[in-house]
């Protein structure tokens, strides 16, 4: 049997070699199909990884708690409209829930920031030092403020890259210089390393951090001391997120004295929730692109079937001769299947080359991130083999079912 298979493959290659144009055109269908599948899936995969990277910039195992909506005389405010979360909530959660590794808080406002003759309208965030830890910010120069800075409501600031670009000259060292927020001088003590876009697409580097107490007492002017814009918590392990969320919900409901029939006056989101939505979107994209590309592979397969049917008709007499000298049905079936698979495999290999090149070109020209995993290539390879097998089966079976006498007499 191995001799038979080997010789049959060799025969198939020679037969295809005789009809180069025909074989080439048939193969082209598979080349385009497989190439399209690889290029499209690589775009989808690239998008997925980009999203995952953006989600990862949030920190590790992060839980965010926003204040809920207010209802005033039936008119509901938007999310975060209520001032229901406080620093005391945060401290209490940390004390009661051992699953939480850390908890931080912050509130934000957009303000005019001035440095010499330059100014910029940017979001000013008053945060606890733990917030900077949870979000895993790192520094290109200087460092974060400390609990002592918070206790003394020190006028110090940590600035993001976008702020640096807009308030400082190129090459100027921001750390140590003094900027003004709401006409108050702040000493810059740290510059944040860039994080790029967030999972929602906003610029995470357009940001400035000051101690929470400084913000609420000296800059924002708060109605209720201790109210926060959001609480940020983190857990040790990703699997702790769900139970931690449940415990936070119970603790906050208790603290806020909510009756069973009352809705939560806060909203809890985890990094997993946010990531999931984004990943589902890019997953849908991948599946859609794959489906579209598969259509061309399908068309390529039909091309193989068509050309094989022609080949079976052309070679009816040959099939008859082969049967007369002792070819069994499975021999004839195998011969035509191998021919189909030879076309589709050669087309598949070329398609992989073109797909990889196509993905590179798209990255270079359109700037889309593309990722070609060995998995994708293997899938495309198996797919092209499968297409050959599937679409070769009907013509091969037709050949194998020929009656030897009729086939011999065929002119």
């Amino acid at each position: 049997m191995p001799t038979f298979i080997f010789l049959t493959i060799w025969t198939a290659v020679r037969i295809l070699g005789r009809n180069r144009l025909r074989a080439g055109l048939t193969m082209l269908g598979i080349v385009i199909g497989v190439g399209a599948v690889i290029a499209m899936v690589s775009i989808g995969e690239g998008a997925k990884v980009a999203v995952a990277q953006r989600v990862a910039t949030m920190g590790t195992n992060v839980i965010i708690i926003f204040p809920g909506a207010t209802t005033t005389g039936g008119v509901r405010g938007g999310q975060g409209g209520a001032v229901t979360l406080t620093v005391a909530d945060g401290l209490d959660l940390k004390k009661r829930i051992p699953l939480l590794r850390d908890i931080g808080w912050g509130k934000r406002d957009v303000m005019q920031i001035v440095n010499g003759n330059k100014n910029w309208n940017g979001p000013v965030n008053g945060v606890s030092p733990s917030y900077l830890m949870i979000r895993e910010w790192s520094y290109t120069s200087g460092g974060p403020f400390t609990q002592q800075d918070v206790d003394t409501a020190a006028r110090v600031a940590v600035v993001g890259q976008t702020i640096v670009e807009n308030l400082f000259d190129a090459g100027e060292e921001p750390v140590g210089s003094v900027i003004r927020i709401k006409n108050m001088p702040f000493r810059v003590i740290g510059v944040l390393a860039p994080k790029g876009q967030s999972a929602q697409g906003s610029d995470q580097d357009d940001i400035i951090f000051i101690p929470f107490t400084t913000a609420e007492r000296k800059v924002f002017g708060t109605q209720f001391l201790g109210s926060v814009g959001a609480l940020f918590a983190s857990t040790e392990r990703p699997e702790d997120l769900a139970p931690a969320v449940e415990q936070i919900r119970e603790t906050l409901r208790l603290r806020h004295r909510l009756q069973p029939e009352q809705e939560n006056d806060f909203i809890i989101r985890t990094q997993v929730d946010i990531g999931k939505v984004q990943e589902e979107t890019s997953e849908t994209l991948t599946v859609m692109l794959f489906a579209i590309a598969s259509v061309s592979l399908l068309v390529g397969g039909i091309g193989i079937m068509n050309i094989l049917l022609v080949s079976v008709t052309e070679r009816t007499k040959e099939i008859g001769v082969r049967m007369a000298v002792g070819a069994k049905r499975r021999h004839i079936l195998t011969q035509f299947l191998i021919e189909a698979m030879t076309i589709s495999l050669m087309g598949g290999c070329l398609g992989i080359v073109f797909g990889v090149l196509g993905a590179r070109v798209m990255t270079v020209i359109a700037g889309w991130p593309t990722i070609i995993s060995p998995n994708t290539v293997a899938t495309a390879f198996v797919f092209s083999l499968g297409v050959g097998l599937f679409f070769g089966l009907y013509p091969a079976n037709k050949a194998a079912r020929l009656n030897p006498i009729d086939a011999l007499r065929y002119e």
Partner: protein
Amino acid sequence: MAALIQCQDLWKIYRLGDVEVQALRGLNLSIEQGEFVAIMGASGSGKSTLMNILGCLDQPTTGRYWLNGVDVAALRSDQLAEIRNRQIGFVFQSFNLIPRTSALENAQLPLFYRGVSLREQRALATDALSRVGLKGREGHYPTQLSGGQQQRVAIARALVAGPSLLLADEPTGNLDTESSREIMAILDGLNKEQGMTIILVTHETDIAAYADREIVIKDGRVQSDRNTQAVARLSPSGA
């Protein structure tokens, strides 16, 4: 001695649309090992149908056919293929070589389906080609060979598997007189020197004269069956 071929009450009925065609009507036949038989008959007499059945390409509607003691009528298509591969060699009127394939590879064909190693296939096919006088032409393609040479490749292909029966269906039908004589000389040699059983279908009396026995088929039955050995001795030299 058991007969190589034993046919008993063979019937073959075709349906062509609404018309029922009785190609064979209770044919009886017995051929011994080593015989050289010519089957003659007008077109439509049923001789082609008989050849197809004898060659295990087709099966009778009713009746029994023993080849080498095996009841062929009861076999499935794969088993028939096996018998064609090992016991029967075919020589056709139109040669039926596989196009654009060398003489050697054409001659190898039956071995190809037998799972023999490539080396052995080549050795046996080369030997078979030299037996029909085509030594040195192994690499030639059918288009590079004359009609007589193509038919010799076909005979080599029939011989390579070492069959017990050679079926030649109008082997000289497409050949000139000279080539016909060469082909018949090869067949005659195979029969006389190697004891190969040969069944020859022809409607040319001078070709039939090479055989030792002449069977005439008419209306799906054997009309006459006579020993022509004496005639065969005279005819080739006198033709």
